[in-house]
């Protein structure tokens, strides 16, 4: 493939990564921003979203779209409830102590992973996309014979991938509306700003925390349901997105939701674009070091304020 189309192609692929990553990372960022804890099990909630999606779609027959839409509602809901229960049963009881939360969520990670292995099994299982047409893309350039449209070999995407990008944009806008325009969003922001003050004003902080933890996990699960027709459900799929989401949240500036979204786009795109110029593993190394050095020279993240 020529350089121009290749760059565009890699960016488009990067955009799909960005879209899913943004959902997962915004979930993590909410928990991070409001509750100030590192949830190591976040990737497992993502994985559960994909696994539940598989169960739902394989139970419901008919057109794949029916099962998929059902999964889109049920999987995040179940995962959210599960996470809220974990918050109530465990995290609340250890008072969100940062270090103990790490150990407890590692424990949670083991439990979720092993239960999935026993129930769902070790295989990667596919979920059929509601629609998935290959779309060959044209390329325009000025050649010797003037302006021309060509169809480069392999230059294509799928309708489903484009839909994932659109769906992520819509979902993130919805989330933004909820957080900025509704009472529940106001309560969350108040809790984030000052927990004690919120308590004094009669906000049930414990319930808000459970809600936030559940919502964060549900967003990860939502990202997983969207991605599972592209990738497949597998019990170890949570590790990589956890790392990426973690990076995105920090690069975006802790707790800053717009920053998180922009960082997700940057990370997704740069991952795609760097892969054009180097061999795959070298590209990964460069992308990884890039993240490290961005933080070394801008420790508060790209959009964070100067905080600790």
């Amino acid at each position: 493939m020529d350089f121009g189309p290749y760059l565009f192609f890699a960016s488009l692929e990067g955009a799909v990564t960005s879209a899913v990553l943004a959902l997962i990372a915004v979930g993590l960022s909410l928990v991070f921003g409001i509750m100030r804890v590192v949830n190591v099990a976040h990737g497992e909630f993502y994985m559960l979203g994909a696994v539940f999606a598989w169960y739902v779609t394989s139970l419901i027959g008919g057109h794949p779209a029916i099962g998929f839409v059902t999964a889109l509602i049920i999987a995040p809901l179940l995962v959210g409830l599960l996470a809220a229960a974990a918050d109530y049963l465990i995290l609340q009881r250890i008072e969100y102590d940062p270090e103990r939360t790490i150990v407890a969520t590692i424990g949670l990670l083991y439990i979720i992973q092993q239960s999935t292995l026993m129930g769902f099994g070790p295989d990667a299982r596919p979920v059929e996309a509601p629609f998935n047409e290959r779309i060959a893309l044209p390329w325009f350039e000025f050649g010797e014979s003037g302006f021309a449209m060509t169809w480069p070999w392999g230059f294509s995407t799928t309708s489903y991938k484009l839909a994932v990008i659109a769906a992520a944009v819509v979902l993130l806008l919805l989330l933004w509306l909820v957080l900025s325009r509704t009472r529940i969003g106001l309560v969350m922001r108040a809790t984030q700003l000052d927990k004690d003050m919120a308590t004094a004003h009669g906000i049930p902080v414990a319930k808000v925390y459970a809600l936030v933890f559940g919502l964060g996990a549900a967003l990860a699960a939502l990202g997983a349901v969207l991605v599972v027709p592209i990738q497949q459900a597998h019990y170890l799929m949570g590790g990589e997105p956890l790392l990426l989401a973690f990076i995105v949240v920090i690069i975006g500036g802790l707790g800053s939701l717009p920053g998180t979204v922009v960082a997700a786009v940057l990370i997704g795109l740069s991952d795609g674009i760097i892969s054009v110029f180097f061999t795959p593993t070298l590209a990964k190394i460069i992308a990884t070091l890039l993240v490290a050095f961005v933080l070394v020279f801008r420790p508060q993240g790209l959009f964070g304020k100067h905080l600790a």
Partner: protein
Amino acid sequence: MKSWLQHTFMHALVLVGLAALFFVLSEYHAGNLARIMIFAVYAMGYNIMFGYTGLLSLGHALFFSAGLYGLTLSMHLLNIPAAFALVLGILASIIVSGVVGFFALRTRGVAFMIVTLMFAQAGFLAILLAGKYTRGDEGIVLAQATRSIGSIDLSDATTRYFAAYLLFALAYGFCAYLVQSGFGRTLIGIRENEERAQMLGYNVQRHKWIAVVISGTLSGLAGAAFALLWGYAGATFATVQYSIYPLLYVLLGGAGTLIGPLLGTAFMFYLIDFASEITPAYMLIAGVTLIALTLFLPHGLAGELRRRWLRWLP
């Protein structure tokens, strides 16, 4: 004065106890304990940074691997004798932790976690990229004949145990000395209140940097010793998982305690070993146990001992 006596008594108990255990335990458990001691050195290194200085790193597998590969590659590719290769392994971890510390310490908190994690990921991928020399994930087997120092065969069960014991004792003694030295007390001061330490005129950055290098070097020593004693090095040891282990060991055993890393390492090892005999779903048991520990023993095993009964525990 009393606490000095108590400390000495505890150190003697730990060191004599570990030596004596070899004669009591079965071959299998003695072999396990040798491994546990080496990984406890790794955890003690981690504890210097995390427990005593308050720096949470997610990239210690890089330091462990620096020692592991420093020794293995010099023995395997350059035919350097084991004793000298051990020195090279330690040297490699000093350099790597020096460089990582230099950059990473410009950040703090969660950003520090990410930066260390990213350096370690880059290191892991670099091991794969250099597959021609490292054989990537498959790794390298060190020939049994080369694994000896002088005429001492380190692949023999007894010498291996006491070599591990020797390294553990050295690291333990060093840490015991460090934490009660002026330098160690400054580190604790930084952990408790960094601004105050700064105002008192301590060069906080420099102290932290030295702590990272000491921590990285102990981790690298553990890595080099592991490769030498068990004869294998592979990219698995550079994965995130192996960065999480020392954190887990230290938190379970008790951060900022001298004996905690050993307790945590042993606890985690036998938790998996016993649970896996009862059920194939042993990770379920491990997960539940970890959660139960955070609920009921919030300061880790040694931390809880110190809080409840032995306030003098170092």
